[in-house]
């Protein structure tokens, strides 16, 4: 009985220490977001004071009102455009990447290894190298000032996505595909009914990366979109930030930043559920 008590005590202390450490880490991660939201609702004068108040009750909705009123509600347009670009791009990229990954992983065709090697080699090329030639190409075919250059290249080919999904698909036992072959599945049925459900966690992860990448793609939006009707969230925030930053703008900028991460936070909260579910369901024996 005494031994039990001692062991319990030791376990308790360990648990407490680990919890405290993890809590500190969590706080460190959350603090920037907390500060951002706090600044967004702080009274303007307080912001300019430059004091670091962790908690203040001198709050106002002025900053948010300013953001929603900026340029006559431009933020809704920015949201809409950002959403269209991000969602179309994400869905498209998931579809094509998973198809390509399936082909590379499970279908034996001549030259599959060399082609895949080529794919992976292109991953080493930094984005800056291809940015200018791509821009020139799109300018020549007149796709500038539209969403096309932001959506089409990623949908056509997303090497990182193919790489990630292929690794995942390779781990699916070939026996499953053979069983489905005997059951009478063609390639597309195999893809939709067997592969896709089994790679759900990877798809969701890739989708999230893709979505966030597109959502935050300031450089791409800057050089391809000129029309104010085509403004997106990153451009909107940059426009708000302006040069010759003055104190009054900080609250506004924080408010705009908060609003910009709201959709992503919502999506992430939803995806978390599916993410966990995905791993639990497949649980391959």
């Amino acid at each position: 009985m005494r031994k039990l008590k001692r062991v319990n005590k030791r376990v308790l202390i360990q648990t407490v220490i680990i919890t405290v450490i993890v809590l500190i880490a969590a706080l460190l991660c959350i603090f920037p977001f907390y500060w951002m939201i706090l600044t967004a609702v702080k009274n303007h004068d307080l912001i300019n004071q430059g004091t670091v108040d962790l908690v203040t009750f001198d709050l106002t909705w002025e900053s948010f009102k300013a953001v929603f009123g900026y340029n006559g509600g431009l933020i809704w347009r920015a949201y809409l455009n950002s959403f269209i670009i991000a969602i179309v791009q994400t869905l498209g990229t998931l579809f094509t990447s998973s198809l390509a990954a399936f082909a590379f992983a499970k279908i034996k065709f001549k030259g599959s290894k060399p082609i895949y090697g080529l794919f992976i080699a292109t991953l080493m090329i930094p984005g800056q190298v291809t940015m200018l030639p791509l821009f020139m190409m799109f300018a020549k075919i007149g796709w500038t000032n539209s969403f096309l250059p932001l959506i089409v290249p990623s949908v056509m080919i997303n090497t990182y996505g193919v790489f990630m999904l292929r690794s995942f698909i390779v781990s699916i036992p070939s026996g499953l595909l053979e069983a489905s072959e005997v059951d009478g599945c063609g390639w597309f049925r195999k893809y939709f009914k067997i592969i896709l459900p089994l790679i759900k966690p990877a798809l969701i992860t890739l989708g999230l990366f893709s979505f966030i990448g597109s959502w935050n793609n300031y450089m791409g939006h800057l050089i391809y979109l000129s029309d104010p009707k085509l403004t997106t969230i990153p451009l909107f925030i940059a426009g708000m930030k302006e040069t010759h930053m003055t104190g009054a703008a900080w609250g506004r900028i924080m408010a705009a930043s908060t609003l910009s991460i709201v959709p992503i936070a919502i999506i992430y909260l939803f995806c978390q559920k599916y993410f966990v579910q995905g791993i639990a369901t497949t649980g391959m024996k």
Partner: protein
Amino acid sequence: MGISREEKELLKKQNEEIKRQQQLIREQYNKMLIDEDNRRKQPKLAPDNVYISLQNINKVYDNYVQAVFDFNLDIQEHELIVFVGPSGCGKSTTLRMVAGLEEITTGDLYIDGVYCNEKTAKERDIAMVFQNYALYPHMTVYENLAFGLQTRKYSKEEIDERVKRAAEILQITEYLQRRPKELSGGQMQRVALGRAIVREAKVFLMDEPLSNLDAKLRVSMRSEIINLHKKINATTIYVTHDQTEAMTMASRIVVMKKGYVQQIGTPEEVYAHPANTFVATFIGAPAMNLVECDYNDGRLIFENGFEIALDKEHKAAHDEFYRQRIAETQKLIDEKDYEKPDMNVLLTLHREKFSLKKLIAKIFGKKQQPVKIKTPQDRLEELQALLDEYKKCLDGGHRVIFGIRPEDIYENTEIPSAVRRSQALSLNVSLAELLGSEYHIHMQLGGHEIIAKCKVTRHIPDNSDFGLVFDLNKLHLFDTIGTKAIL
């Protein structure tokens, strides 16, 4: 460094020979593919009275490795055929060719009168049970069973009815809503069987389904499968490496080794009349005893002086056997079979592929192992030597392998009347294993260990002498050269 000039010359000659034979193999392979294409364009007529027919099936992979050599088999409807053999003998490959999961390199496959080489697995209407069950992990048992039917666009009611019926037969009704990871091995196996049953397919193919189960479960599942077969009565091809399963379940057995069919026959035939030493030792446990001895004009002489006299029929069979062998070998020589490339060359083709080790060795000038390869001249000499051997066997005394199953060795006391007794022999017992109702008695005869199965009548201590007789009705003789059965 350190390689003499003669050795270098030898190496060079060998390399040239290897290259020539490799070229031959490549040409042969390509020619075979072209011939096959041409052949396939011709109209095919299925043989009648046969449900599944495999004719001259060969499987050669892209890297020139041949997995199945000239497989011929006719299967009647409702039979349960078992392919049995050690691992790597090509039984699974043949099964997968029947299923449509592997390409048939050459040969014809007919299922229910239809030429099936080019047909997909779906069109062949076969059902398959895999060794590791291959259940879809993200679907419930119900959905697993229903999947094949859904693909074939059956109505919902039909699917429901079939699934429920199959579940009842296999007693898995209460698991229908579970996922595969929540099932035990035996339950998963039943679901895999169920998947095959709901389809009501023409042919059932089973690829070592019981290998992943524990021994006890294996025995119970074995009888379940047999009952299932009786009930559903589908034509089944069953692959296993366990000879017990083969013997108990099959209507006919196909024994395979290293891609070649060794023997096709009913369990009784394969047991009582094995075609060669491999089949003889593979089938039956404990294995048949094989002892080398001398044959001289109808008499078997063992190394310890023991003799067995063969009767006239046996002697005639023996002579006939060797006459046939001589004729065969002569035919090979006449038809210039020795010009065919040596199969060992295939190994060099593998080694030819780029390997870093080899490159490094080459750079550092290490001595390269010469590959032993036979030129046509060598092969011709071999064949002629073989011919002489056979002639010698026919004419005079030669070695043979004497085979007798353990249960056909009786103690020299109580012998059933049906047994045709040989002379008595007394051997020293090295080990007497008591298995409860019988003894396995290990003895030495002429340098070979033999085992006898005897009923327990008295206690048999180790190192005692044991008097035994052989049942001459059940003796087997095997040729030492080709290990085929003489009788």
